[in-house]
């Protein structure tokens, strides 16, 4: 099985087969990473596709000494950031959650007690009110289930900063949920 690095090396030479393998491997990862940041399925789909196009066009700039995922994540994060800026501008600085179905109750998890739809709605709204950076770290830890080391790698920050950012992001998320409940 080819590694990510060798696939990108082949993409550099215009190898579309290698590109197809890479897309197949990361398409769902890309979609979910984008979904966590923009909170809208249609946009997350478009952003994931645009991210792959950038990989194809910018493959020659990829540093093969570095792992692929952090590089790819930075592309996705950048696209999401641009998308949110445009969207905020369009909606006069209010981020409207028009796709409330981006988070679903996990009925496939029998160990958990059922969460109320009302609580879910509070969570969805509170998540989209967080800053980009806070939503990013919450998304990676809570919904992608990444370890602190994995988050540190993907965001290119020290492990201690991951803990610190998570602490403050959770404080804000809890506060926002309380405010909305009140």
């Amino acid at each position, binding site marked *: 099985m080819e590694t990510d690095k060798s696939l990108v090396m082949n993409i550099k030479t215009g190898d579309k087969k290698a590109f197809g393998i890479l897309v197949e491997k990361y398409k*769902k990862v890309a979609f979910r990473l984008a979904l966590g940041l923009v909170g809208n399925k249609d946009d997350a789909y478009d952003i994931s596709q645009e991210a*792959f196009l950038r990989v194809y066009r910018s493959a020659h700039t990829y540093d093969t000494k570095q792992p692929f995922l952090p590089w790819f994540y930075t592309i996705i994060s950048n696209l999401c950031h641009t998308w949110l800026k445009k969207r905020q501008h369009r909606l006069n600085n209010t981020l409207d959650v028009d796709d409330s179905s981006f988070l679903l109750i996990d009925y496939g998890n029998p160990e*958990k007690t059922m969460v109320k739809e009302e*609580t879910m709605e509070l969570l969805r709204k509170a998540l989209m009110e967080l800053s980009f950076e806070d939503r990013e770290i919450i998304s990676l830890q809570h919904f992608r289930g990444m370890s602190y080391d994995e988050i540190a790698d993907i965001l290119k920050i020290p492990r201690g900063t991951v*803990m610190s950012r998570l602490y403050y992001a959770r404080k804000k998320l809890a506060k926002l949920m309380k405010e909305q409940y009140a």
Partner: protein
Amino acid sequence: MPKDKRELLAGYIDGELSDKERQELESELKKNPELKAELEEFKKLKEVTGMVRYADLPDEIWENYWQSLYRKLERGLGWIFLSIGAIILISLGLYQFFKQLYIDSQTPLMVKIGMTALGLGVAILLVSLGRERIFAYKRDRYREVKK
């Protein structure tokens, strides 16, 4: 408790602390009810987020993902060639136009001056716009992803 120590709460509920950090925090939790309340709040939050998952797309969309992406890739190449062709033809057309304008002795001087000014104005505006875009690009904190 110092602020940076409170941050250990995040690592505590995620099981990411070292033994030493965990023991330190647990001993602090016993004597600090405020900290304990904060921990409970985080646990509750973690419980709620643990009960939800991201929505997925229908299978048919995933099956057609590559085809859709490939079409976009082809279209992108099409636009690049179209742009190159348009730039070459427009540049050549403008060159011929101005050449004829200056050679033709029948054309009034005022028309020649007017057309030259118009051409210069458009060129200055394009250069200015380009410089602004380059300046904005250099100040973009996320620009490194394109490198």
